[in-house]
């Protein structure tokens, strides 16, 4: 199908085939033709040689000489053919090399253009310096913000710590009260209704803290110990 098309429009190559390809094809076709005629001449020469040999055997000198002359001529033509082929091959090789060189140059060109474009995007040394300066500023600001945030957190911590130590105190206080419950109660804070404190040592410290909290919130100490053993 492609062949038919090509036949009708000889000058118009199909896509992805350019004039260079066509010219190269002509060269290679000519090389093929030369190779064919070289083969033909070789065969003819050997045939002439064969004829000459039989003619010599038959004693026909003049005819043998004629055959030999043909042989010599065909041999010479064959050599010419080989020379042409070699020259064509050299030409083809140098064309293909030139095409490669052109390809290399083209590749370099696009590479350089790309490099330039990227550098343009980067925006030169000033831009980079400016950016670096800005980055420093931004970083400093970020550090300030971070420090600030850390400070606030510290405030919170302090609050928490103070609360924690208050709770600790309370806990210590409650253990003290327990001890007092076993021994005769002396402390003013101890109410007489805090008798079942004996059960409080068993629960874990967490519960104890909870207990103390509840105790502080409600203020009624009698209700809390009843909850603990459950």
């Amino acid at each position, binding site marked *: 199908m492609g062949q038919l098309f090509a036949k009708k429009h000889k000058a118009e190559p*199909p896509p992805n085939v350019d004039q260079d390809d066509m010219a190269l*094809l*002509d060269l*290679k*076709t000519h090389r093929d033709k030369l190779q064919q005629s070289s083969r033909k001449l070789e065969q003819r020469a050997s045939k002439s040689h064969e004829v000459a040999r039989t003619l010599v055997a038959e004693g026909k000198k003049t005819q043998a000489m004629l055959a030999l002359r043909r042989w010599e001529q065909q041999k010479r033509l064959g050599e010419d053919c080989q020379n042409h082929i070699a020259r064509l091959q050299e030409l083809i090789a140098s064309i293909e090399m030139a095409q490669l060189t052109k390809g290399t140059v083209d590749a370099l060109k696009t590479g350089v253009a790309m490099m330039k474009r990227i550098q343009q995007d980067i925006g030169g040394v000033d831009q980079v310096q400016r950016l670096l300066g800005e980055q420093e500023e931004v970083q400093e600001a970020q550090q300030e913000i971070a420090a600030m945030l850390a400070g606030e957190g510290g405030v919170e911590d302090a609050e928490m710590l103070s609360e924690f130590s208050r709770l600790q105190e309370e806990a210590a206080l409650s253990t003290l009260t327990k001890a007092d419950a076993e021994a005769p109660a002396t402390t003013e804070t101890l109410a007489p209704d805090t008798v079942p404190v004996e059960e409080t040592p068993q629960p874990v410290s967490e519960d104890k803290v909870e207990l103390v909290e509840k105790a502080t919130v409600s203020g009624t100490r009698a209700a809390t110990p009843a909850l603990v053993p459950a």
Partner: protein
Amino acid sequence: MTAVVMADGKDFQFPAFYQLPPFFTLQPHAGVRAKQLELWKQLISEYCSFHRLFIINLTEEPLFRNASLPRQLPFEARLALAEHLVTHSAALWADEVEAKEAPKKERLLVLWRSVSAWADLILQWATENALIGSVETVQGLIDGEAAQGQEFYGAPRALIMAALQELQRRNRATIFRSSTGAEGVKFL
């Protein structure tokens, strides 16, 4: 399966059914005929592959004649066989690939390797020789120095063209003619 060595077939091992006279008569029953044609198809493929035979002439081919019987496949049967081969893409009409007008149904291009497989071989050769992107003459593929020793070296032009057209279908080659009408291919 006992194989018989024929004197004119060199070392080709003919299958046993090659010695059976009915094998050389087109069978009337459709089922039997289909089986017979299939056997012939296999035989032709193996025979041509063994002898590296690309083109068989329907009227001349000695394979259709078994001298030891003596029997030969009648022409109508050969034609039916040829059509069977063509429809099963085991062969192409040799003159159809090149000249599109009025192909003579006489010479059969036997595809003991499928067109696609031939195309693969050519493409592999082109890849190995770094010919992708370069131009080659069709003639150069057939008998050029670069193609020497290749499986497709010396193959008929019709086969090479069919394989190149397959490559063109796959977008791995472009077949084109130069301004002087020389036929070439550019591997892609």
